[in-house]
């Protein structure tokens, strides 16, 4: 019925089925005692192809691999009781701002939102494991800056931050630049404005 899967493919399949957490290529190679990461990568690709049409998919999120159910079957698997409780609107905005601007300080988040962000909002995102403190910005006051985590990528089905919806368009439109920068650009009001905008987006990327 099927072609026989290769030994490494079977081993990866069993390991990832049994794993409680997504695993990196390195972790898989170590666990299975395979020396060549390229070999593991190739077998993962074959396994991913095998599952592409099935009810369960093999996916890579932030460099870590796991099995999950096919998205089109969501309606069959959703329980009566919603498992993911709704995030408050404040929290979703803060999460989006962190994801699209990371790393970003709380003051920067607030300046974008124009509203004070209650301490609880960041807590909620950190408790979910989606956001983490990522050091301090070396400016006066040394504010803590925040960034997203691999769990965030996992949860939202993103292979990497490059997959964030619309991030390229936002960057191209300069909407990820601070207001001050945009102000300056707008006030200069020159014919080659379009060129400048392009320049800035390419710098930012």
């Amino acid at each position, binding site marked *: 019925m099927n072609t026989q899967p290769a030994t490494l493919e079977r081993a990866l399949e069993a*390991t990832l*089925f*049994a*794993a*409680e957490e997504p695993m990196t290529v390195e972790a898989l190679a170590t*666990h299975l005692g395979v020396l060549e990461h390229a070999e593991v990568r190739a077998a993962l690709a074959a396994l991913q192809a095998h599952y592409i049409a099935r009810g369960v*998919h093999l996916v890579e999120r932030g460099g870590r691999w*796991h*099995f*999950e*159910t*096919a*998205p089109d079957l*969501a309606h069959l*698997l*959703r*329980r009566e009781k*919603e*498992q*993911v*409780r*709704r*995030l*408050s*609107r*404040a*929290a*979703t*905005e803060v*999460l*989006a*701002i962190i*994801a*699209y601007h990371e790393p970003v300080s709380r003051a920067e988040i607030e300046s*974008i*939102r*124009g*509203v004070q962000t*209650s301490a*609880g*909002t960041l807590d*909620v995102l950190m408790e*979910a*494991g989606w956001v983490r403190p990522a050091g301090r910005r070396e400016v006066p006051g040394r504010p803590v800056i925040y960034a997203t985590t691999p769990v965030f990528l*996992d*949860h*939202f*089905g*993103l292979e990497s931050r490059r997959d*964030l*919806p*619309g*991030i390229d368009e*936002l960057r191209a439109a300069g*909407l990820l630049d601070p*207001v001050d920068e*945009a*102000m300056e650009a*707008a*006030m200069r009001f020159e014919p080659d404005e379009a060129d400048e905008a392009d320049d800035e987006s390419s710098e930012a990327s």
Partner: protein
Amino acid sequence: MNDSAQPFMFPPSDSARPDADALYLAIDGWEGPLDLLLDLARRQKVDLRQISILALVDQYLTYIERAGALKLELAADYLVMAAWLAYLKSALLLPKDEQEDPSPEELALRLQLRLQRLGAMREVAARLMARDRIGRDVFLRGAPEGLRTDRKIVWRSDMFSLIQAYGQVKARTAPRIYHVANRPVMTLDSALERVSAMLGVTLEWMEIRDFLPPHASPELKRSALASSFVAALELTKRGRAELEQDGAFAPLRIRRLKDSTSA
């Protein structure tokens, strides 16, 4: 049946925070001044870049007025925003030449840019939330067996260590035999005999060292000295000799008592 796959529980919303509500306006999802403006901007259904800030400010102020009429408690920042927007509105209406820096156009532009950015974030936030999310749209393995790494210690030793250890045990615990060397000594009896014999020769004082065998080894000499001393004491006690010494560690002298020969 998939409860453990959903660690993502959130409090329903920030607006449910009871103590924040007193100074917090949350109507139809409005959360703050920019939010409110943004919502008003959206209701005009125009591009934020094209929107009339003047019209927007008008609507905002009307809203705040109405909210005040509804006896809602307004947050301080709403009022600050309202005051600022009222100023902005008046400045926009004034003739250009009377304006200060920064110009109301600049302020209006800044407001527009901020609204644009927040609008963009709200839009992508909604797109993000609509993605296939774990625990809502896609599900992880319900009962993973789990991977475990057991550490196993492999003990190593070798033949030499083994027999060396045994040798040490045997050596350490072997019955111990003590040998005492047969040393040359002069017994008390022979010393008594010797001292008595020599005392018989003369009545003069003699130093006790003169009683020692002249050619003996140092060990034997020390033994002989000790024995001769004890023999001298014994003979003195029996009344056959007398002892004298000038001071501590001075030569010890012995001589026969005259009448002892008869005794």
